[in-house]
């Protein structure tokens, strides 16, 4: 295992100071992830450096920020995968969120969107067997049936989305429209809609998505699907919602 001396150019922002970039050089093993590098920067250089992290394995969605301008989960991004060996690694907070401090952004509006679709922070566990991967538009993921190992009688299937906010940062419409539900919000609506047969609930969920700041504001940039670390395919879900809304309009038109 080799040690690397990695220069980090980190965006700094405190409410009483103008924004700036600090450059810290940290020494980390070549197997380190970017989150380890920023941990080292905090420990060795500046303990006022603020960032979020928890699980270190892309399950909690806390740590998301931009590395060299691209949204990633630093806990599963190796330094060697993003560092060219020379230029400082630029670390910046997610786009389209108000910044609280350094790399930490205010996610309260984001969680309001998720809770509007009844997708609360604690993932609702579903236990069913067999399960299929619910991503019809993602070519790499084929729907598949998983065989349980011998000793298991049931298991929990959590939602794909870890509510990391990366899609919201990547989305150009989120940049422009504060009231846009966003890829995460709309994917949550799609997910919630598929979990219920209650016609009133379905109508309400589709109604949430049907407004000027819902599915129709999406400009088909597909950045959300590209950036998502969990293969949620929010763009595909937005298009699926559109299809259903259009079908409903046509049925209403023809009085069905």
């Amino acid at each position, binding site marked *: 295992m080799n040690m690397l001396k990695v220069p980090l150019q980190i965006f700094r922002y405190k409410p009483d100071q103008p924004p700036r970039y600090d450059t810290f050089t940290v020494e980390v093993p070549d197997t380190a992830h970017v989150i380890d590098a920023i941990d080292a920067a905090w420990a060795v250089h500046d303990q006022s450096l603020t960032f979020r992290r928890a699980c270190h394995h892309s399950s909690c969605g806390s740590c998301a920020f931009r590395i060299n301008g691209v949204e990633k989960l630093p806990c599963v991004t190796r330094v060697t995968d993003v560092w060219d060996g020379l230029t400082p690694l630029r670390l910046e907070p997610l786009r389209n969120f108000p910044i609280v401090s350094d790399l930490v952004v205010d996610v309260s509006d984001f969680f309001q969107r998720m*809770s*509007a679709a009844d997708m609360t922070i604690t993932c609702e566990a579903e236990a069913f067997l067999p399960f299929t991967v619910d991503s019809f538009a993602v070519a790499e993921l084929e729907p598949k049936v998983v065989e349980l190992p011998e000793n298991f009688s049931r298991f929990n299937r959590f939602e794909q989305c870890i509510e990391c906010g990366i899609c919201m940062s990547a989305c150009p*419409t989120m940049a422009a429209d504060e009231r846009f539900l966003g890829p995460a*919000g709309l994917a949550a609506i799609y997910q919630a809609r598929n979990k219920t047969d209650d016609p009133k609930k379905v109508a309400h969920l589709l*109604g949430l998505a*049907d*407004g000027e700041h819902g599915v*129709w*504001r999406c400009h088909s940039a597909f950045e959300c699907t590209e950036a998502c670390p969990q293969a949620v395919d929010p763009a595909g879900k937005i298009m699926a919602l559109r299809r259903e809304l259009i079908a409903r*309009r046509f049925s209403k038109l023809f009085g069905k």
Partner: protein
Amino acid sequence: MTENPFAEEPKPTSAWLWQVFTGVGLVILLGLHFIANHFVAKGGLRDFTEVVAYLRDPLILCLEVLFLLCVTTHALLGVRAIFLDFGPSELAERRLDQVLKVVGVLTVAYGLGVTWMVIR
């Protein structure tokens, strides 16, 4: 406990659908218009007599009027989409829609007016 603004059902909108329908219509109508006015007449572009003859054909006239309606709707809906990206307030949004409707009506009226003056 404050209200969740995202949990209120908004007014449904059909703007995007109209954008798509007029857009698909334009692929055909604009295609025909471009070909008819750049490639069909001898010398490509039509001179005055050729324009009059062209517009006096009833089928052509219908297609060109339909084209005018589609292109005006599509263009102004596009402009509206760009303005919406500036995060206007609800009031500003309503004013914008009113202004664009007026511009649309004036544009179509102008187009129909010029056509009428030319073919009569």
